[in-house]
């Protein structure tokens, strides 16, 4: 972040600025054909009329944000996430994208991503996306095991998963990412590894592997509370995670973030904006944007969003210096490149280093972080216990102030 922006942020910015620092845009499409058992997002079924109204409301919000950020440059990244963006009829989506790009143009070489379910990626969809400027696909495969897919309540078969990758490639998409879930209850280890090997052999550019998390508000969450859900054991999870890490590396992928692996030059640029704390605008229900040091979140109701196009209810997260520093620490450490103490000191003052000295030493002593080339990063062991590390480093309001150097005494005038 530029020094001016840093100062504005630390001063408790209330004004989102004119957008000179904006680099990316996220668009949320909340529609789904079914609810997967692990999901706790706000979603709803796709219905004719409803989708169009929603897309119109997105464009209204886009215009409003464009007015609010007159200095926003052409976007480096665009990301359509959901829900299931691929559920939207291709012509509708293509038209939407065209109109969106008139409001927020893309820079040359920008990354434009779309999340898709494998069963939606037929030739018609792929052609429409390519024509509309989408150049990256994130395919929600989750698993190559039929039983697991059924247990998760996904809408495709293992073969459809593989076929989707092939078709994407055939349609000219060179930047394809696949999502896999780790720790699906009941999935046998060999099956998971076989599926992993298969996808690594398919020539994809990027892989995201997520530990299955039991979210309170998901179907799994309810089952767990009723005592009817057996989570996969920690020991098994550990084995599979490291196996994934090793195999991905072996196949030429760099594990550049806790859950993300990429071939050379194929890191997810949009997500990197989040991890590197850049300003990213956002449209749609539940979408979270950051600009000028201010972060906000749109309200979750689809009905209300559509009823008030262009002016969604928003909630702000007002972050003091300690909160900003905490984010810099944990987001930075999620990346394999880790954090740079010198850069942190430049941004937050030397007090941040004083504040984290003891906790860093504690986690270093436990083998969870290491120093490499002047940077601090998680070790292999630290990856799985990263939240414990982040907790140690979390700063609470007042922590930075407590560690600030005392003011120099005023010298008496002679």
């Amino acid at each position, binding site marked *: 972040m530029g020094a001016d922006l840093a100062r504005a942020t630390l001063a408790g910015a209330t004004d989102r600025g004119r957008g000179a620092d904006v680099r990316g845009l996220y668009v949320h499409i909340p529609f789904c054909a079914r609810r997967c058992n692990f999901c706790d997002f706000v979603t709803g079924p796709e219905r004719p009329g409803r989708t169009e109204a929603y897309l119109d409301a997105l464009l209204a919000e886009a215009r409003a944000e464009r007015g609010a950020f007159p200095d926003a440059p052409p976007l480096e990244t665009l990301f359509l996430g959901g829900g299931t963006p691929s559920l939207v009829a291709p012509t509708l989506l293509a038209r939407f994208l065209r109109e969106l790009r008139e409001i927020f143009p893309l820079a040359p070489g920008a990354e434009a991503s779309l999340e898709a379910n494998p069963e939606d990626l037929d030739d018609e969809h792929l052609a429409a996306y390519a024509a509309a400027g989408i150049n990256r696909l994130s395919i929600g495969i989750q698993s190559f095991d039929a039983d697991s897919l059924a247990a998760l309540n996904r809408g495709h078969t293992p073969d459809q998963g593989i076929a989707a990758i092939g078709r994407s490639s055939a349609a000219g998409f060179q930047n394809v990412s696949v999502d896999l879930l780790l720790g699906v209850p009941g999935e046998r280890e060999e099956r998971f590894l076989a599926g992993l090997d298969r996808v690594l052999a398919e020539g994809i550019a990027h892989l995201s592997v997520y*530990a*299955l998390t039991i979210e309170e508000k998901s179907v799994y969450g309810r089952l767990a509370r009723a005592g009817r859900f057996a989570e996969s054991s920690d020991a098994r999870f*550990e084995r599979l995670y490291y196996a994934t890490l090793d195999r991905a590396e072996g196949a030429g992928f760099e594990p550049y973030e806790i859950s993300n692996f990429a071939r050379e030059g194929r890191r997810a640029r949009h997500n990197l904006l989040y991890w590197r704390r850049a300003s990213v605008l956002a449209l749609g229900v539940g979408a979270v*944007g950051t600009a000028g040091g201010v972060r906000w*979140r749109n309200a979750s109701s689809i009905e209300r969003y559509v009823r008030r196009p262009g002016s969604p209810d928003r909630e702000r997260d007002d972050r003091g210096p300690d909160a900003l520093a905490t984010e810099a620490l944990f987001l930075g450490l999620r990346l394999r490149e880790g954090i740079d103490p010198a850069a942190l000191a430049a941004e937050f003052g030397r007090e941040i280093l004083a504040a984290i000295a003891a906790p860093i030493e504690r986690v270093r002593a436990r083998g969870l972080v290491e120093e490499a080339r002047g940077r601090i990063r998680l070790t292999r062991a630290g990856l799985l216990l990263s939240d414990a590390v982040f*907790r140690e480093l*979390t700063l609470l309001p007042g922590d930075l102030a407590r560690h600030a150097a005392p003011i120099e005494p005023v010298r008496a005038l002679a």
Partner: protein
Amino acid sequence: MSTPLPTDAHALRERIRNFCIIAHIDHGKSTLADRLLELTGTLTTLEAQGQVLDSMDLEQERGITIKAHAIRMEWRGADGVPFVLNLIDTPGHVDFSYEVSRSLAACEGAILVVDASQGIEAQTLSNFYLALEHDLAIVAVVNKIDLPSARVADVRHEAAHLTGCEEDEVPLVSAKTGQGVRDLIETMIARIPPPSGDSDAPLRALIFDSKFDQFRGVMTYVRLMEGSVRAGDRIMLYSTGKSFEVTEVGIFRLKPIPREVLHAGEVGYILAGMREVNDAKMGDTVTLAERPCAEPLPGYREAKPMVFSGVYPADTADYDVLRDALGKLRLNDAALAYEPETSSALGFGFRCGFLGLLHMEIVQERLEREYNLNLIMTVPSVIYRIRPTAGEMFEVSNPTKFPPAGDIESVAEPFVKAQLILPAEFIGNVMKICQERRGVHIGMHYIDQNRVNIGYYLPLGEIVLDFYDKLKSVSKGYASFDYELADYRESDLVRLDLVLNGDRVDPLSVIVHADKAYDWGRELAKKLKTLIPKQMYAVAIQAAIGSKVIARETISAMRKDVTAKCYGGDITRKRKLLEKQKEGKRRMKQVGTVEIPQEAFLAVLRIDSGGS
């Protein structure tokens, strides 16, 4: 036609009635006091709507009065003859029995209030006996006659039987509505004698309370038995021999009102430049330095704490705040004893002595509420007498100071004599819990058709934790109990320690009976397993007596503590979760390599010492 009060000391004394109101908790003592204040014009009706005598929030919440108050009321009956009615309010709880007894010593009479729907209960009896011991004229009165559930005739009969008077001599009142209260006042004036005493004799005054006021210093509440006192006099306290110059004397209505002089028979206050309530000890005798009385008043004793607990700040940075807070509380609570103490697990703190569990809870709440302190209290303990194999007998109240078994010849623990009053249907349940707590049955008799009074000797150590709650729960809330210290008895007691990864957690050490040690140890270890979160390393929990491990549990190490996704919409939520967890961590205590949450220390208190 109303006549003024006489100014002659002797004549005035004939018109004085010094009395208190005693009752079992919630029988209406405070409401009756308010009604008296209202009817005598001491309080306007509006002021009487709050309960004026209970001045602390805590007292109001619990419906109890902790500090004794004295209020002077004036009453003119139908014939217009004026009387001075000094109401001395007394604490109602067994923990404060010494204070109650000093307040009684200041009176000639007592109004014994009995709730018409509850009848005589344990503290009705214990207060009655206490009043008898002080030779007070006792006027039993049946209150709450307005309640639909009132059993007026029965309870009147019980009350008359207890106090040895005729049934029609027991007034019936409703303190809430005011019904019968005027007649009660007339009855009281008739049946309670005026005080005796000679105001020219050497000063001999009983201190029945003292209160620290930040502007005026200690205000000493006195009942003059003999002599008189005025500003300028030099007084002396019998217990210490210290003397002070009186700056002001006066009486209380709701506020202190200065007077020129106080005479024998009167109740009022003395201000004499004292700096802490310890200078004006409850029960002590005040006399004149130049002309002291020959003998002090009987019954004085130093307040002796019975229950001890280690009190530590959850955040070690708060030590100074805690120390200052205890000092301030002590200004107005002479019974609070404390001295610095160190624990390897909790750092620097204090060992505090309390009159009982209620006193302890009140002090804890005040520290937490008024001084904003987060506290860790160790398991409350009593004073044990240890006869070592070599050397003199000594007393120990901190379990960590219990010597190793090999050095102990015998241990004696304090026993109390308890009386429990309950409906007959719960006899079995109540006797069972007394037996579980090593009680020794004394006897049982019916106090009426449905209720019994059961006597038990019980180890004080077995009732300081949760006996009262357990008693209430096995008797659907109907049982009540009262106790007094009886004697010390030898018991087979051992110290049970909790060890985590080889480090002893001394705040969790408890003294238990050898027969119960295994059950306690197992329960404690199991409980801790659920309360201590997973750590980086496995945690071995052991319960041990000396070096012998009697129970163990293991908490396996944490292996997975990671968040899969952290994108735009997740960051704020993640950060807030981390902040909340970090705050929780700050309240943990590090014992060796293990982090223990504050709740773990308190959870020990909730282990059922009955073993079930």
